[in-house]
């Protein structure tokens, strides 16, 4: 486990953009200028509804997709100019856990082969050392050596995701991108996997990018939250602040849409008007304009950059002071019940 000075950013994402051509010269702005850092031992959660570009961010960082613009810097080195072979070396530092463990494991490879592959490709180990590492890995993710001989279809969904996690950490990466790692799992298994991820993070001092649309889960795991809407980060800050005092109207609406498991609490929903607008050639305006309850004339005339409101909290809304007055608090106070 390497140690770094406080707030050392292992990964710096700067001005990341991904545009997809959709014909007729038009472009779908999947990611439109996203910045954030990932730090060892800390979890940044990326939340937002479907189509907001969360997964695209992760895929651009590891270059499964080629970013259109912007940069991803790992330990001070940009990953963008790397050729596929050098990029493969970068994956020693940068790993990813996929959303669907059914699809992300090769159905023809046993667990042993799945976990051996990264060891063989990155490390020169003897067969004995590899075997030792394999049993260490399966134990670390809460499985036993008997699982090594199994095929993915012989495992449950939770066990498969444990293998996906074991594969990601097998070569001691420093950064793990978690693309909705619990979304395709049963609720009963979800907690176990989250606990496992937290434990591994503590033991290995990993930096996590946790992508999720499940706010309960995010509150449970994240140190910091970035809220995405139509390819842009609209608000970013410490988890508690984002949940208890959201300042962007969209964050408010998102929080108020999340179900609360508490009896007798009357919730006030903030409903945004209309449908999510199109990410195809968006006008230079606030992405929420047209739906926003506190909209001002200026909102449809210029882009709203992310501005800090204190040291740790940034909002892409110049009228964030008024949000609290205009909109009822999203999450009910704990005194109820």
């Amino acid at each position: 486990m390497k140690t770094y000075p406080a707030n050392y950013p292992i990964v710096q994402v700067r001005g990341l953009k991904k545009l997809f051509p959709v014909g007729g010269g038009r472009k779908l702005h999947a990611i439109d200028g996203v910045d954030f850092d990932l730090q060892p031992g800390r979890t940044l959660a990326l939340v937002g509804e479907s189509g907001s570009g969360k997964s695209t961010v992760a895929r651009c960082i590891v270059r499964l997709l080629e970013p259109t613009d912007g940069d991803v810097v790992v330990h001070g080195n940009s990953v963008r100019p790397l050729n596929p072979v050098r990029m493969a070396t970068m994956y020693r530092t940068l790993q990813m856990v996929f959303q669907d463990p059914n699809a992300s494991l090769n159905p023809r490879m046993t667990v042993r082969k799945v976990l051996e592959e990264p060891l063989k490709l990155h490390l020169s180990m003897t067969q004995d050392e590899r075997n030792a590492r394999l049993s260490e890995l399966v134990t670390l993710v809460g499985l036993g050596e008997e699982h090594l001989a199994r095929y993915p279809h012989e495992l449950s969904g939770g066990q498969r995701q444990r293998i996906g996690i074991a594969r990601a950490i097998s070569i001691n990466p420093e950064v793990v991108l978690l693309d909705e790692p619990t979304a395709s799992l049963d609720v009963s298994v979800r907690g176990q996997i989250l606990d496992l991820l937290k434990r591994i993070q503590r033991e290995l001092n990993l930096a996590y990018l946790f992508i999720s649309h499940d706010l309960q889960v995010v509150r449970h795991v994240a140190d910091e939250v970035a809220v995405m809407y139509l390819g842009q980060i609209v608000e970013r800050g410490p988890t508690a602040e984002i949940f208890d005092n959201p300042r962007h109207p969209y964050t408010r609406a998102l929080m108020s849409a999340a179900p609360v498991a508490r009896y007798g609490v009357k919730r006030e929903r903030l409903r945004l008007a209309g449908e999510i607008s199109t990410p195809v050639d968006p006008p230079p305006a606030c992405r929420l304009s047209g739906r926003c309850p506190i909209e001002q004339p200026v909102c449809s005339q210029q882009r709203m950059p992310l501005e800090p409101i204190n040291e740790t909290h940034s909002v892409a809304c110049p009228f964030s002071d008024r949000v609290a007055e205009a909109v009822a608090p999203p999450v009910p106070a704990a005194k109820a019940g």
Partner: protein
Amino acid sequence: MTSRPIDIESAAVVAPPRRRPRRRHSLTMKLGAGLLLFYAGVAVLSFFWTPHDPFMPGAGPSYSAPTWEFPLGTDRLGTDLLSRLMVGTRYDLGICLAAVAIALTIGTILGTIAGYYGGAIDTAIMRMVEIFQAFPGLLFAMLIVQAVGAGVVNVIAVLSFVGMPDYLRLARAEVRSRREWQFAEAARLVGNRPIAVAFKHLLPNSMGPLLAFTSVNAAFSVLIIASLGFLGIGLSPDDPEWGNMIARGQDGVMTGEWWVSMFPGIAILGMTGAFYMLGDALSDLFDPRRRT
């Protein structure tokens, strides 16, 4: 090819567990595989033993109808037809298997590359293939055999050349459809180079449909071999290839010596049928849409 042994057991269970368990070995598969094993056995046996010398004229009387001594009769020169038919199995099965193996290997490799990389590489390979495919297979084979000359090796080369585009297209389509699969992306993240992802991860998962197709396609190859033989192109008229034998006997058909052409014809029918049945059973096994 870097592919590992094909594991039919694990290939069959890629599907979600909800599906009804399928019968792994249908009757068609047993029949097709059994018949092919029989042909292979005959071909091997013909190296060591045939009832008579298949190349010696006058082993019996000219145009002898089937008797105990000559179970399938003799031809105009009095050569034993059973012996010739047995030796002919070597030609038809051997040429077919060799040609199919070469076509499958080359087609799969090129198709995988085209399918995984896409772009300019894909375009270059596919345009080339389309030029080949613009000709009907048999006609193309005839043209090339005439150009390069006769001989077993040449016939194998030409057949594999003519058959290769189909394998290439199928391999390309299979790999293309799976390129975006998550385990292919996961394989990249594990540190595989793109070419390793294509051949180590995608191709083994595409082998099922390819093998099924190969078997069906082998049936066509047998027909093309026999057609070339019948037309007297490629092999020497003395080679006891089945198509050749039918051609030799066609004079007799009108005058009542039906057996000379009939038995090689049945042999061809049996072999194409066997390949067909095996291929059909294999594609049932691998085609997800037919898994009901």
